[in-house]
């Protein structure tokens, strides 16, 4: 009796259930991916690390010998990395300025090997290496500045599963558009101040049209639909003005058609 009823149930599983199952699996996948991303996030944002892109720099240091094959045999960087890969001392040795990099190269160089070479060759190679190191450091510096800028402007960084810190978008999963919208909305909300009596849900709604320059400054703003309270409307405009420069997306062409923003208490 029970077996027939079971098979009966099995046969009559509706198509919608399968769809729900597919959907649920998709959602689970998204959830797991996001969990992974969030874990990555927590690593990058450890408070005790002053350098926000620590892992990137560690990778660069390991790759340094590849770019200077001549000194590869002499400066055995990989050896020291293997010996104490995760120790805090290693982290403190991570070079962040050209001077640091040079200092580190000096320390690790096999002096006997170097003495065997002619001084001319040495100088040539050294200047060449120095140049490359400097270029590398320059590139790194530029990268750092870029990321700092991204943090300042609150731009969403999708590479490396990172989001900018310190806003409600952290930990959000969604499309680039979602994340960008959350960033803008958060940036404005921080400056959106209203009075106690304006805190009536559903009573006050103001729609604003907004155009933004690629540098985040406001190009044009106007009230499309005012609320019943002129003071609320002016609080809205003050919030927009005060939140300049607004975050800008990676692809600034997306700013072309402007924003339509609905403000509620």
């Amino acid at each position, binding site marked *: 009796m029970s077996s027939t009823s079971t098979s009966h149930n099995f046969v009559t599983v509706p198509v919608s259930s399968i*769809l729900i199952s*597919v*959907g649920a699996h*998709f959602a689970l996948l998204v959830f797991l991916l996001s969990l992974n991303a969030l874990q990555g996030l927590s690593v990058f944002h450890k408070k005790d690390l002053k350098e926000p892109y620590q892992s990137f720099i560690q990778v660069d240091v390991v790759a340094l010998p590849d770019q200077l094959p001549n000194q590869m045999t002499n400066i055995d960087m990989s050896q020291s990395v293997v010996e104490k890969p995760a120790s805090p001392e290693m982290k403190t040795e991570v070079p962040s300025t050209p001077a640091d990099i040079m200092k580190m190269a000096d320390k690790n160089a096999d002096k006997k090997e170097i003495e065997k070479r002619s001084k001319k060759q040495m100088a040539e190679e050294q200047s060449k290496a120095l140049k490359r190191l400097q270029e590398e450091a320059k590139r790194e510096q530029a990268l750092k500045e870029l990321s700092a800028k991204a943090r300042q402007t609150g731009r969403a960084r999708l590479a490396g599963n990172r989001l900018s810190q310190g806003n409600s978008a952290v930990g959000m999963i969604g*499309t*680039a*558009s979602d994340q*960008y*919208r959350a960033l*803008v*909305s958060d940036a*404005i*909300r921080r400056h*959106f*101040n*209203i*009075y*106690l*009596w*304006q*805190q*009536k*849900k559903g009573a006050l709604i103001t729609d604003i049209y907004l155009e933004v320059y690629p540098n985040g400054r406001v190009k044009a703003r106007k009230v499309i639909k005012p609320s*019943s*309270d*002129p*003071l609320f409307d*002016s*609080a809205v405009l*003050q*919030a927009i003005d005060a939140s300049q420069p607004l975050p800008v997306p990676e692809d600034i062409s*997306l*700013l072309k*058609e*402007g*924003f*339509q*923003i*609905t*403000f*509620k*208490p």
Partner: protein
Amino acid sequence: MKLILGLVLFCLPSWGTIYLTVSGANVKRARIAMGQVHPIGDDVSRDLQLARNIREQLKSDLLFSNLFDFISDSDFTKADQPQDYNKITYEDFSSVGAAFALKLGYQASGSKFNVEAYLYDVPGQKKIFGKKYSSSTQQYYRLVHTISEDILAELTGEKGLFTSRILMSCWKYPYKNAPAKEVYVVDPDGRNLTQLTFDKTLSTSPSWVRDNKNITYTQYEWINRNGLRTRGAVLKKHDLTTGKRQIISSKEGMNSGASWSPIANQGIATLSFTGRPELYFISKDGGEPEPLSRNIQWKRLLGNGFQSNQTSLLFDVESGWAPDGKRIVFSSARTGHPMIYVLDLKTKIANQLTFAGQYNASPSWSPRGDKILFAAQRTGEGNFDVYMIDPDGNNLARMTAGESQRGRRINSENPSWAPTGRHFAFANNEEGHYSVYVMTVDSTHKTKISPPDKECFTPSWGPNEG
């Protein structure tokens, strides 16, 4: 399929106009710079005491509203010279962080005086209003209430905090023997106490009929019922403009706790002529009451006495109207303990709103519609405190913190909303006897409004033109 298609569309990178919603603003009190009350012109007699009184009263009104923070006077002395009482330089006020500036001037002549008040929106650089008020010097506080009312109405759109009145039932304190309880009316700041009844009997649970002139209350008196002279609790209507009174219900037992619809000539009262207190529709013109309790369909009932037939548990009392006039809130004991219920008057379906505590009573529905206040006793030996809850049962919050110590209970009872929905009145016995207090909804300000020589109960805050 739709789900997957939706997800795919959702992920497409085409943006177009970027649509956003910004909400969850930072909410704060408005910083207001209130100027001195300067004499207007040179040829009028100056009444410095009056000027000081006006300013003190205005400040106390605006503080009472709980919507403003005052900027220190010394921060803008230069910007508030007597000759500038009706002018403003916005920069002088924006530099001290003022959101609003209020400039004032007065003229006194004999027993009459004028006040000019100018309210400015400082960041918006706009004059909000400039008005001239005239009154007799004795009633200066009424004039100030009108200014305060105008400021609040202009900014918040709400009316009635200073011009509404509160009914209460009081007897002499300290008293000897059985005292008489009379009905009084008082301004929300405790001024202007007026006795309305002089019947030397018990006059209780007063309430406002929403026609701006009538009130009702229950009075114990001798009545002639079926040829017999008996003493009973009758429901009376009292016309405040003419003083005329009329009994609107004098059935056997109790005729009590009337509350009146904000939109229609209809009230609900508790009558007990069937042997148990039940709710009935009543009219302010009298007439046969229409049963309400017995037509109710009960939903979501939880408790020991559920479906009880015990007469003692089947009472429905103390109704309060929602501002839309379509629902009421009341107290019923049918689950074992008195709990609060919300009743849809059209469908007659009642939903249980509270499930906790020993005794929940005397609910009052906010004129804004979003909150319900009630008094609740947590345990059998405990005291009553005022609590607030959303009409859907969410956000239960305690508003007062009384205590029960050594057999003495500090109770807060009978909450009644102000017409603006930012304050409420309630009765409290923290001084040993009951007094009526007015409190802000955020529990930050509490003011006693009943006189020290009276013990007062059951406040009922009137509608804005009350």
